[in-house]
């Protein structure tokens, strides 16, 4: 390969990577909640992905790869941050009794609050509007609660790694994750799954 064909191939890959930019930025922004930090992380991930990108012959492989680089960048940023100020009071963001009204005194679902059957929710994954609602619901969670949830579910860190990164105990971590899921499912039920069947 001569220099100009290498150059051509690189710019082709760059154009493909650029096609993922908006999605990567949304992914990073949800987790970092700071536009310039998120933009830097995306830019760095794209540059890092450029190297060796020739190995991938499908768009989806390239996408998976650049996202895995981006995930590592986000993990690094979160780790660096946590060495400075600890995430304060992560467990206090959603108070312990935040979801108590859903349950009776004996801890059973109130009739009106009983989780409904979402049918075939996987169908929603193909719907662009669902993802707008999903993002809004994530954004609606308190910042640290959402961040810990996304460290678990988006970045795939286990509880122990999350504990280390944000300085909370495993028990607290499970509690925060539980509240995050309670909040998210309630938000999705109210704004997406229940609206369709009324």
């Amino acid at each position, binding site marked *: 390969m001569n220099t100009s064909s290498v150059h051509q191939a690189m710019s082709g890959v760059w154009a493909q990577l650029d*096609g*993922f*930019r*908006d*999605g*990567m930025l*949304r*992914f990073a922004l949800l987790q970092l909640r700071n536009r310039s930090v998120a933009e830097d992380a995306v830019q760095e991930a794209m540059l890092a992905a450029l190297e060796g990108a020739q190995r991938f012959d499908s*768009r989806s492989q390239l*996408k998976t790869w650049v*996202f895995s680089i981006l995930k590592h960048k986000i993990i690094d940023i979160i780790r660096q941050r946590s060495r400075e100020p600890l995430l304060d009071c992560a467990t206090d963001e959603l108070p312990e009794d935040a979801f108590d009204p859903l*349950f009776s005194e*004996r*801890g*059973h*679902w109130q009739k009106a609050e*009983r*989780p*409904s*059957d*979402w049918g075939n*929710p*996987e169908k929603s*994954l193909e719907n*662009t509007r669902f*993802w707008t609602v*999903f993002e809004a619901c994530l954004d609606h969670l308190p910042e640290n609660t959402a961040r810990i949830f*996304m460290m*678990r*579910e*988006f970045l795939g860190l*286990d*509880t122990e790694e999350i504990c280390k990164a944000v300085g909370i105990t495993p028990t607290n*971590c*499970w509690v925060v*994750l*539980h509240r995050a*899921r*309670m909040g*998210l*499912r309630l938000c*999705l*039920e109210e704004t997406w799954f229940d609206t369709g069947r009324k």
Partner: protein
Amino acid sequence: MLNCKQATALMSQEQDRPLDLKERLGLRFHVSMCAGCRNFRKQMAFLHEACAHYPDAATKQQEDDRDPV
């Protein structure tokens, strides 16, 4: 015996750690009798699945706009 509130905590935690035998049996028994918690459990699994799909979905719209295949 578990109530729904305790069961939801376990159904979240089973996404994050292996439950012990007592927890598993307690949960199985509760869920077998409680339709609300059966739905809740499916919803937890769906949340996990949705998060795994998020990167793909987030980039899809932009790709559709720019690159009709």
